[in-house]
């Protein structure tokens, strides 16, 4: 192994830290745009992880996945979300039902929970414990963001984080799904974002706000 491979392996082993940081910042963030930027950074970190694995395993397919993740998840989806936020002209805060300090305590608790949850499996599967824990933590915090934020757009962001977690779990346990499936999943996600964007516009036009906690009764 050359110097680059050694450094790539070391960077890979410690890259879970960056994912934890993006998750914690998302929990602390007060604006939707900050959350979108964090999602973009998170996707970029994951693309780098795939790249490091591709370098170490000399896999052609993995390079395609790197490009796909970078283009769609780190650029296209955040760009689309920014456009939606601009076009909606709604207040830009996430209107959380918990304060940032509470959210970050909860996110920290979820990270710890995921470490304890993966402990028995990581050894048996022979994979890096921190990476698998990061995957579970992304899934859990994605769910947490979806239930605790009241703005309709934050549900999309939460879903995207959750999907990043599933992607990372697949990456760490089986070194990635086949390319065809990855392409399918990523484009599914892109369509999902567009649909949710349309939905957000409809919610705003019908109810004149984006607060999902107030969607209690039906309207024509």
């Amino acid at each position, binding site marked *: 192994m050359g110097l680059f491979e050694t450094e790539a392996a070391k960077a890979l082993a410690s890259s879970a830290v960056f994912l934890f940081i993006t998750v*914690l910042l998302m929990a*602390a963030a007060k604006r939707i745009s900050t959350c979108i930027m964090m999602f973009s950074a998170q996707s970029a970190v994951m693309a780098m992880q795939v790249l490091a694995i591709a370098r170490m395993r000399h896999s052609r397919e993995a390079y395609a996945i790197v490009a796909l993740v970078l283009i769609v998840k780190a650029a296209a989806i955040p760009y689309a979300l920014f456009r939606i936020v601009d076009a909606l002209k709604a207040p830009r805060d996430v209107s959380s039902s918990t304060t940032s*300090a509470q959210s970050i305590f909860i996110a*920290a608790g979820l990270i710890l929970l995921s470490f304890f949850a993966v402990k028995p499996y990581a050894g048996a599967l022979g994979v890096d414990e921190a990476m698998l824990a990061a995957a579970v933590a992304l899934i859990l915090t994605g769910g947490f963001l979806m239930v605790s934020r009241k703005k309709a757009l934050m549900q999309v962001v939460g879903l995207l984080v959750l999907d990043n977690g599933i992607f990372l779990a697949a990456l760490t346990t089986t070194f990635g799904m086949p390319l065809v499936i990855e392409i399918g999943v990523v484009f599914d996600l892109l369509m999902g974002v567009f649909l949710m964007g349309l939905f957000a516009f409809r919610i705003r036009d019908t109810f004149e706000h984006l607060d999902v906690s107030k969607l209690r009764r039906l309207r024509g």
Partner: protein
Amino acid sequence: MTIAINVVQVLMLVLMAPLVRGVIARIKARIQNRRGASVLRPYSDLAKLFHKEDLVPPSASFVFRLAPVVMFAVTVVAAAFIPVLRSSALLGIRGDFFILVYVLALGRFFLLLGAMDGGSSFGGMGASREVLVSTLAETPLLLALMSLAMVAHTASIEKMVLWTTGQDFFELSAVHALAFAAMALVAIAETGRIPVDNPTTHLELTMIHEAMVLEYSGPSLALIEWAGAIKLTVIMALLVGLFLPWGMAATFSLPAVAIALVLWLVKLGGMALALALVESSVAKLRMYLVPDFLGVASALAILAVVFTALMR
């Protein structure tokens, strides 16, 4: 030789502190499209203040005069705990990070006494706000330092720095990343920068530090301002030493020390740039949101301590 370099380190931190403030103010001015004052402006400000008369309110006791002197002395002592050019410090002993934290707290305590002794209502108001901020900032600062101590298996700052120098940058540990995030938030609160406090405002609704020093003038004010600048530099140097110590001189040779000095100045300049960027892009928090801000720091610091157990 060791003693000589250690003394030089302390003198550097004390004498360069106004320059650091000047550089930050200059960078901020540039970001805001102004030309800005010279980077040496804080020195002339200090010189001017030292030549002015020291006005003391008639109701004040000796504590009012004593407070700035104690605060300055204590801050200089704090500078003696920080490794700069080599991983050694003048007062580097076991457990010195506790002393560092509480020496800074002692300085603040005397400033609070002085502020309340001045007799104006602003002094008391600023003091009560400062107590709130510092109480909430103490926990994350100590916890973050403790997590680093636990990772490095040592209780002295210079040994922690030495341990980090021996690590590979690419083997970045979660503990260090979390502790850095927590300490960066605490550093902003401790030194009274935006978004916790604005050092350039005199608006009674928001000021914390300025409200406390409102009654001071002349040499007393100069000592307080200088001590504030030293504190900022000390905390920045502590962050550089704990999280980016690579390049510190391992030997006593002149080239090694010179390289360490240049690298240290570059790192400090980078931190000044980062601080100026944060201050120019973030709005000041409402007073009631400050506990939330420091709560985030506490959560990060607690997570850092827990990770010391998980990573082993």
